[in-house]
């Protein structure tokens, strides 16, 4: 409160600016829905994460060898894996968001949304060609063979220790249908 009083006495414009920012930040947190840059939620793993009995992951095989996380820094590993994770769900994610919220809210603001700026058509073959060059620059080596597989691994607990058993493997094209 003291802070706002000081700001009010020093400069009315900045007082109003900071006050609106603070109120909007609280409102955005209270609403828990869509955010507006630069006002975000900072949940940081606050949602309850339920126990699972199986996990799905992608294994990237380059020239016959599976890429291993510890060959790369954390940033580089994210750089390798994020595109694979995001690409498969991109069409559904972007298109659902567009039809569910974006179109409706922008229309309410009298803005016409050009679908091409929001919607992405998934093309796994094009992605794989791009990804081959992309990985090649990261590992600084030519790639003759690229294979991405989606692995489903079953979790079992033996004497309090979790074990992983691969129960299904799908090719990227199959997994990305």
């Amino acid at each position, binding site marked *: 409160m003291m*802070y706002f009083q000081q700001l009010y006495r020093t400069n009315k414009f*900045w007082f109003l600016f900071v006050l609106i920012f603070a109120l909007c930040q609280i409102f955005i947190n209270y609403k828990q829905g869509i955010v507006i*840059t*630069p006002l975000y*939620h900072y949940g940081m*793993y606050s949602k309850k994460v339920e126990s699972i009995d199986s996990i799905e992951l992608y294994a990237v095989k380059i020239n016959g060898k599976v890429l291993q*996380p510890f060959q790369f820094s*954390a940033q580089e590993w994210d750089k390798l894996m994020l595109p694979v994770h995001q690409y498969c769900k991109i069409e559904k994610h972007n298109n659902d968001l567009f039809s569910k919220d974006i179109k409706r809210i922008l229309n309410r*603001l009298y803005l016409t949304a050009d679908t091409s700026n929001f919607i992405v058509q998934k093309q796994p073959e094009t992605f794989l060609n*791009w990804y081959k060059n992309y990985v090649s620059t990261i590992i600084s080596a030519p790639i003759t063979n690229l294979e991405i597989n989606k692995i489903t691994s079953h979790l079992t607990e033996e004497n309090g220790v979790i074990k992983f058993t691969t129960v299904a493997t799908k090719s990227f094209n199959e997994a990305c249908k």
Partner: protein
Amino acid sequence: MQIKETYRSNMIVGYTIIFYVLMVYKYFNGMFLFQMHPSFFYTREDLFTWIFMLTGFHKWLLNNQLGCIIMDILFYAAPIIFYLVYRQLIKNQKSNLNHFNIISLVAVVMLSINVVYIQCYTMYPTNSIEAHIAWMLFPIVFVAKDINVFKLLTDGIRYFLLFFLMSAGIWKIAQGGIFNTHQMSNILLVQHKEILVITPQHWYAQFIQFLINTPKLSYALYLAGTVFELSCIIGFFTKKYDIFIVLGWLFFLCSNHFIMRIPYYEISALLLPFIISAENSKTD
């Protein structure tokens, strides 16, 4: 207390140093836009982003190496240009209002570049936009001409970081994460699935396995993080414990990197108002 211009100068220097240290870190990890070769975008739930997307600029950068290089140059050159303009003008005549108008104008340009760059960058598979908040807030503070307003706005950033941390703690209560004793074990399992399945024999995989298999210990880590976040409320009432908040936050950032493999250092510039005090910025 009369605030000296040195305070602003120290803040700008601090911001510039953190920005360029992170720039080097990102360059060597291939995180510049031109090193990312973006080929698709992932829409987030952000009204500002949707309005920005109407311009189609995010699409123009896809598979456009030259465009990405230009954006990298603009983004990474802005702080040093701002610093040099500030230093040059402040050296010549401290109280000239026109000089501060120029400094404000350069800050507005830097803010615009940062917003556009970060909007695009985080739409590609790179990093979360929340981590980049410091690069959007500090340029706003640099727009202020009057040193007293500048000081109050940096105090505002201090409150913002306190809110950031405290809200993270409150979210954990509101969304129930804190009441789940297997929360951290389950998070680690999802976060490190490739490590656990592809390289189960690696010492780090064994360490993570140990944490997953010891839910009491991993939950204690989660709980400690939440207690730290919630205890930041003290910062709203006194600056006496700022040093503990800084140390706690730095420890949190390092632990996040080590245990979660999430480098969240981009946010570290928000610590500047905790480190640089107006009282110690005496020499003009």
